């Protein structure tokens, strides 16, 4: 029976060893520090956004001397590599081993969904970056607060802008074949068609497709513009190939909040000039908080902060405001959660508050790519104030409909 002996020795040995390493680390917040966990992605395809999240949050903490409301802040960072099961494990580590009081993140929608029940069970105040719509709509999590936006929150105003200001009539949409892409395009389609436009084509290439040539060839050319709902670097890759095929100038390009993020812009050239996008942030925002934030970030890392960096910087400000409202007593979870949701604070993205579901209400900016001081920036050309996740729709009516997806709202104007 040698195998069983070996097996149990190994398992027991690993277990005892691990437990021995673990026991001293399990302090139950006796030291008076506020422990904050950052759930991010530092390896894999989402890595560049995840690394920005960490950099900005560390900067925020540093600017406040790692102290909020008189208590020292300890930051614990977890890397999920973008895999939902691993995100859950890392979260368990942050909660059970490190004893965090609150969590900033996670980054990807699927990670938030994977951890939903765990967050509820552990009653963990979560300041999410992930854009999954239903977490603050049909399956609202009482411990959830989202400081970024839902997938479609910035697409609604852009659709309005395209229809009313840019006067586009026929458009196509293209995005990654993930929930984020579907939700964003669905939101865009709904508002655009309600304003009299027509979406004549929808394309959803797989997230890890090597090449967009076949999608560019399928794209209709008798359209006014195409909306890009890409995440990460796919927008950049698609656009590069768009230019190679000589389509630039023939069709206008508008982008969602991550398609032409600052992080991606720095690798682009003059071909990007003039592209219109919408987002709840731009490094060019002219408020005192952002001027300081962007300048310091640029100084440290030599590039402008974008979506992901701004996300955690804003969440940090929200965390601070809520902590102040409870006089630093983060251990009182119910009170802290109530304070989080009642937060109204000025941040790098402008003034923000939260709706009854914990989703942010704030400005959405329409931006245009321009060259300034030798680098490409997202200049703000228009502001939609106080945009909520429901746009101008009645929340009750909105929630009666199914969640935005690839097939809802149904696209009635598609042409073969």
């Amino acid at each position, binding site marked *: 029976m040698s195998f069983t002996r070996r097996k149990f020795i190994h*398992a027991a040995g*690993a*277990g005892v060893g691990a437990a021995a390493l673990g026991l001293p680390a399990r302090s139950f917040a006796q030291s008076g520090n506020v422990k904050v966990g950052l759930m991010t992605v530092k390896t894999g395809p989402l890595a560049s956004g995840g690394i920005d999240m960490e950099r900005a949050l560390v900067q925020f903490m540093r600017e406040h001397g790692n102290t909020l409301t008189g208590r020292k802040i300890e930051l614990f960072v977890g890397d999920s590599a973008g895999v939902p099961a691993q995100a859950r494990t890392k979260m368990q580590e942050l909660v059970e081993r490190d004893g965090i009081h609150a969590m900033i993140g996670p980054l990807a929608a*699927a990670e938030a969904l*994977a951890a939903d*029940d765990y967050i509820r069970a552990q009653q963990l105040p979560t300041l999410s970056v992930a854009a999954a719509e239903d977490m603050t709509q049909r399956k609202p999590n009482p411990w959830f607060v989202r400081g970024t936006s839902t997938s479609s929150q910035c697409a609604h105003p852009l659709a309005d802008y395209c229809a009313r200001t840019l006067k586009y009539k026929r458009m196509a949409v293209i995005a990654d074949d993930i*929930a984020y892409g579907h939700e964003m395009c669905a939101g865009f389609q709904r508002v655009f068609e309600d304003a009299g436009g027509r979406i004549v084509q929808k394309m959803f290439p797989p997230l890890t497709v090597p090449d967009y040539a076949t999608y560019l060839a399928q794209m209709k050319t008798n359209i006014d513009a195409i909306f890009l709902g890409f995440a990460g670097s796919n927008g950049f890759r698609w656009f590069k190939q768009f230019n190679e095929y000589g389509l630039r100038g023939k069709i206008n390009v508008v982008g969602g909040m991550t398609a032409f993020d600052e992080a991606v812009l720095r690798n682009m050239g003059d071909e990007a000039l003039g592209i219109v996008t919408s987002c709840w942030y731009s490094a060019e925002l002219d408020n005192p908080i952002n001027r300081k934030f962007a300048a310091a970030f640029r100084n440290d890392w030599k590039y402008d902060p974008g979506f992901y960096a701004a996300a955690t910087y804003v969440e940090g400000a929200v965390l601070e405001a809520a902590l102040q409202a409870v006089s630093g007593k983060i251990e009182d979870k119910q009170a802290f959660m109530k304070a989080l949701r009642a937060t109204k604070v000025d941040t790098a993205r402008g003034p923000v508050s939260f709706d009854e579901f914990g989703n942010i209400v704030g400005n959405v900016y329409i931006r245009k790519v321009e060259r300034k001081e030798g680098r490409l920036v997202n200049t703000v050309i228009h502001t939609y104030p106080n945009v909520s996740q429901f746009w101008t729709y009645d929340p009750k009516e909105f929630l009666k409909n199914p969640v935005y997806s690839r097939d809802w709202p149904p696209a009635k104007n598609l042409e073969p």
Partner: protein
Amino acid sequence: MLIAAVAAILFPLVGGPFYVNLASQIFIAALFAASLNLLVGYGGLVSLGHAAWLGVAAYTSAWLYLRLGLQHAITAALALIMTTATAAVFGAIALRATGLGFLMITLALSQVLWGTAYRWASLTNGDNGLSGLTRPAPFGLSLEAPAPFYYFALTVTAFAIWTMWRFVDSPFGAALRGTRDAPRRMSALGHNVTLVRWLTFVYSGFWGGVAGLLFVYYNKYIHPTALSLTTSAEALLGVIAGGAGSVAGPIVGAAIVLILKNYVSAYLERWNMLLGFVFVIIVIFMPEGVVPGMRRWWLRGRRA
């Protein structure tokens, strides 16, 4: 051995919840790797599609629970039937080839399932995954807390591995090893090599499905990434690193991979690289795997 068993049973009393959970995950990974080992180590058929069984079982169980509201006992049984049936079909297709061809077909078949999970959103909820699941409550005992689940996983895994050990030690197991080492000779002796392999493939798929059920119970969530090539590759690497062709090997190998992935990654940002180095070092010093290698050293030490 009694000491080891007692240690495993008493572990949840000394370890914190995080470590108990980690141990549960190790059991699940070990079971998954052990089921793959039946095919790779004892059958000599390298498969990169093992994630298929985890996915089919997990998704079937989740879907039946969410959409039809069935009890866990029924969903588990149906999930395993579904998984075994899929294994029967996939095995029939895959065994038309051997070597790299077999590897590629198993990879392709599981990738087809992966793509289907992503795209057929009306069935699988696509990229959002299926959430809102619960753990079963055998005999009314809740498994929600780490320690009860740990014992559940430990029991299932221990039983499964014991069963697999009996399988390998049986005359059928001997025939299987024969087809691995000398297929032509076995055929000449009158064994139906393809049938032996196919039965092993299905059996391996069955236990892979059991691991899948434990996986979905533990996570209470299933997402297409569970069906990805990475899942299959990690299992295969665990089997090889631990020592294919031994019963304890895959357990050790799976534990190594999991601990590096979930535990060391907290301390070391470059854990991926470390994992690579660990594999390379294992190959240099213990090319047959950790368990056979250590057994060799132990014997050598004894002789000296």
